[in-house]
């Protein structure tokens, strides 16, 4: 028992470094530990799925098969990666300023809600391109407003944004449900309540006869834009200063509160755009569970990518594939689709549990 407790208790103060063989290869040792961690994670996952009667190895085959092996599933993976990547960047931008935006889910939802409102209202009366612009802008503004509530509560009232953004997610979901069960309900729809569908012209056009749509290009442009803003502009630099040391930033004359609010607003706008693109390109109407926890998956992706735009987008694509593989697992292996949440968590827990070593080897 004591041994168990000792093992679980805080690390002893770092011992003076011994001149051992691995000291000179800190990063490769870290790599080995990460790989070992993933092996353990996948082993745990295998045990869990076999408890539910699925094949411990065939699940991996099913997952790869249903997400990567044919062009159809690859395109689906990319389509889903759009909202996840944008919502993940919505975490990464405020993280630069030291903020924790766990509100990607709510910002995605409101982006989709705003896009639906605009698209359904004007879609039949204006040329497609006007609807697209309107929906994208509306989604971005809605997401930005939602994130700004948390930012302002942080700067003016001192309420932790990690908590307020979470609460706002639940409120956003109730707004969505209210609209589709009440005022936006499609009177001609049957079964599950949903909004009226977008006019065909208002839906984002497909690219080159594939399933991919214009949303992919818009998302890529937004991602490149945000990479540029973070890495190459004074604003991006100022955010990093605020994130590094808020007091020093204040003393050097930066408008800290304004930077905090702007980072959250930009983040929220990205997620809102993601929600709008997903709606206008893929969903085409508002239904319950439209976002399917993409907002939370995105938080994990941003964390895995250590809040660096390029890595964050890569992690988002990986997580999109895993999220999508839930369908395959449901159909082929008879597992509940939520099993992918387990796998996502087991993937992110590895770098989390190695945090100490990363710092040491860095």
């Amino acid at each position: 028992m004591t041994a168990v407790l000792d093992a679980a208790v805080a690390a002893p103060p770092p011992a003076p470094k011994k001149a051992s063989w691995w000291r000179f290869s800190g990063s490769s040792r870290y790599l080995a530990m990460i790989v070992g961690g993933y092996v353990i994670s996948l082993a745990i996952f295998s045990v869990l799925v076999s408890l539910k009667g699925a094949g411990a190895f065939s699940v991996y085959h099913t997952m790869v098969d249903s997400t990567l092996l044919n062009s159809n599933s690859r395109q689906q993976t990319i389509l889903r990666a759009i909202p996840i990547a944008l919502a993940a960047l919505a975490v990464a931008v405020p993280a630069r300023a030291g903020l924790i935006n766990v509100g990607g889910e709510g910002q995605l939802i409101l982006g989709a809600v705003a896009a639906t409102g605009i698209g359904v209202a004007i879609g039949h009366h204006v040329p497609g391109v006007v609807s697209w612009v309107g929906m994208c802008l509306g989604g971005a503004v809605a997401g930005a407003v939602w994130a700004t509530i948390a930012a302002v509560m942080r700067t003016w009232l001192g309420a932790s944004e990690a908590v307020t953004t979470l609460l706002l997610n639940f409120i956003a979901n109730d707004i969505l449900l209210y609209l589709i069960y009440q005022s936006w309900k499609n009177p001609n729809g049957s079964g599950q309540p949903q909004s009226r569908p977008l006019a065909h012209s208002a839906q984002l056009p497909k690219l080159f006869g594939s399933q991919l749509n214009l949303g992919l290009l818009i998302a890529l442009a937004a991602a490149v834009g945000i990479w540029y803003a973070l890495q190459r502009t004074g604003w991006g630099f100022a955010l990093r200063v605020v994130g590094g040391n808020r007091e020093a930033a204040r003393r050097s004359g930066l408008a800290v509160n304004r930077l905090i609010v702007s980072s959250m607003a930009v983040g929220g706008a990205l997620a809102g755009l993601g929600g709008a693109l997903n709606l206008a390109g893929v969903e085409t109407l508002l239904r319950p569970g439209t976002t399917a926890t993409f907002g939370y998956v995105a938080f994990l992706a941003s964390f895995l990518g250590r809040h660096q735009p390029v890595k964050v987008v890569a992690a988002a694509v990986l997580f999109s594939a895993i999220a999508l593989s839930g369908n395959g697992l449901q159909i082929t292996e008879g597992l509940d689709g939520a099993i992918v949440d387990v796998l996502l968590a087991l993937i992110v827990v590895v770098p989390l549990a190695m945090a100490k070593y990363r710092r040491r080897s860095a």
Partner: protein
Amino acid sequence: MNGLEQTLIGGVDGGTAILLPALGELLGERAGVVNLGTEGAMLAGALGAYAVTQSSGSIVLGLIAGVAGGALVGAAHSWITIRRGGDQIASGLVLWFLALGITSVFGTTYVGTVITPLPNLAIPGLSSIPWAGPILFDHNVLVYFGYVLVALIWFIFYRTRVGLTLRATGERPEVVAATGGKPGLVQFLAVTIGAGLGGLGGAQLSVGYVGNWFNNMTSGYGFVAVAVVLFAAWRPVRVLGGAYLFGIVLAAASVLQTHGVSVNQYLLDALPYLVTLLVLAVFARRGRSETPEALVRSLSRSG
């Protein structure tokens, strides 16, 4: 029984499902660790309690399983954050996701089934106080445990050496270490026991007063519990007030509906979160200076 009494009775039942996790979260945060995995601990506790109660027929074993399920999440959170230096916010969310996935996958068997919930025990004498008696003293044992726990935690915090060590760990872990204490052990125990209480809060939902299980049944209550601790400025008695406030708003929403008030259900569903947000807006600044020092670092930075 009129609507107001119904609301208050329901508020105490539902409030207890927030109170226990919030008191647990209070323990951890006073030791300097924030645990968003409280939501996951509640889910694990809710399903653990339900599954064991159903298969063993013993609700006592079920409650024990609920505590164990929550404590397991807490132990994982302490291992990741304290022992391995992982980010507290991210670890909490990861564990929530893990619990959400596991309980959804393994809980499907139980969806749609029912069990007899914990019986109400009217306390002789007290429960016959006019009006207040039935509201406060005709509930299940977990509700009474909540009353006792508030007093117990207050006593431990402010009147015992253990409480002093706990609070000192939340303020200045290095001082505790310098005086021969073990801040890591204190944090591990506080977070694990706290999450065990989170599990018990989940059990209050599944076997406490309803007697069923459905996927994601905690629907954000664990996050509300964390918010309650913030606006209660880390004081046990205020945590009680905040938790019951949430419970009452929750109950009011459903009472309004049964009384045929034609408000959309989903707007009512949003009400408890909205009220929590508003209270947080009013009280956050006031509580700021009371934030345990060691917590400030984890709440203001991620990554």
